[in-house]
């Protein structure tokens, strides 16, 4: 197994409403996104989709805030919910930490996706999100879009890196 950085996006002055990775090569086994990001608004519910599509998503969410835990499956089917990230109400310089793992992206099988997203504001609004998603679509994933449910803007300095992960092969291990 090896990991290769495919592309990094750093949000520049003025901010952007969408992070897009396009022309994704098909020669990896899995994809991973690492993000250190923040929203300029209090509406900071982050979502993801593939190939610009707005359908065929199913999402399961497990979250924790302070001492409480919550779960929610009632999201719009057009995108995968990743959870709320650090918003304009958070302490300055606090950015959320997110990773997203994408399987089967280059095959015709459905695409399972798993994400972990944490946002720590100090004494309040500390949030942990585990989200499992499935994109039921046979298309190869050639592009990925991340944006906020409310159409709000990513903070300057937010970074997103797309990695490609190859399948391991030691020549001796048998998988059956």
């Amino acid at each position, binding site marked *: 197994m*090896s*990991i*290769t*950085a495919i592309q*990094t996006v750093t949000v520049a002055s003025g901010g952007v409403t969408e992070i897009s990775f396009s022309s994704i090569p098909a020669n990896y086994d899995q994809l991973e996104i*690492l*993000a*250190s990001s923040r929203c300029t608004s209090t509406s900071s519910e982050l979502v993801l989709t593939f190939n610009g599509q707005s359908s065929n998503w199913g999402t399961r969410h497990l979250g*924790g*805030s*302070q*001492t*409480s*835990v919550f779960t929610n499956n009632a999201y719009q089917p057009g995108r995968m919910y990743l959870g709320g990230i650090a918003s304009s109400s958070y*302490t300055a*310089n*606090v*950015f*959320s*930490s997110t*990773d997203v793992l994408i399987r089967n992206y280059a095959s015709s099988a459905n695409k399972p996706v798993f994400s*972990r997203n*944490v*946002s*720590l504001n*100090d*004494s309040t609004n*500390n949030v*942990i999100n*585990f989200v499992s998603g499935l994109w039921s679509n046979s298309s190869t994933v050639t592009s990925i879009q991340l944006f906020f449910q409310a159409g709000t803007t990513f903070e300057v*300095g937010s*970074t997103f*890196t797309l*990695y490609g992960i190859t399948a391991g092969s030691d020549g001796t291990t048998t998988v059956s």
Partner: protein
Amino acid sequence: MLVGNEGYEPPAFELLQTTELGSPQAVVSFSNLDTQYASDFTHLQLRMHSRTDGSNTEESLLITFNGDTANNYAWHFHFSNGTSQYGSNGVNQPGIYPFATLGGGATATHQAAHIIDILDAFSTNKFSTTRSFAGHNPDPHGTGNKVSIGHGVWKNSAAISSISLDSSAANWASGSRFSLYGRRA
């Protein structure tokens, strides 16, 4: 690059340093990180198999950066023991608590596991943030097994030059291993 050869692309995920203790030690540190790695790596990841020589089944630990042990940290985590879940957070703390390791009250051969990501570790515009995934099995019977996800913040935007892992009230036990990985972007 020689004609006819493919260009070399370094791996995006690389082992930087490993410490495996041959004798008990109170603090394990990785230092000179910004000068050694900031030009090549963007993110850091700690992977730990550890226990302490404290007398309890579970023992505390703290992560600090750049030698700062003042109350400039906050943390929050949730864990499950298989039947219930719990959450806890701390503000104005002297370090980040990424969930417990094991102590002398646990079966001798057992160690706790932690994987801790530090994204944009060398940024001077962001507070340093950890995202941790941890678990431990104190005994062979499954009693006291726990899994946790947590996070922490150091309220300082300096680039990380050192990471210290303090076993708090005890020493890290022999055989504990601490590995630091770098991620290119």
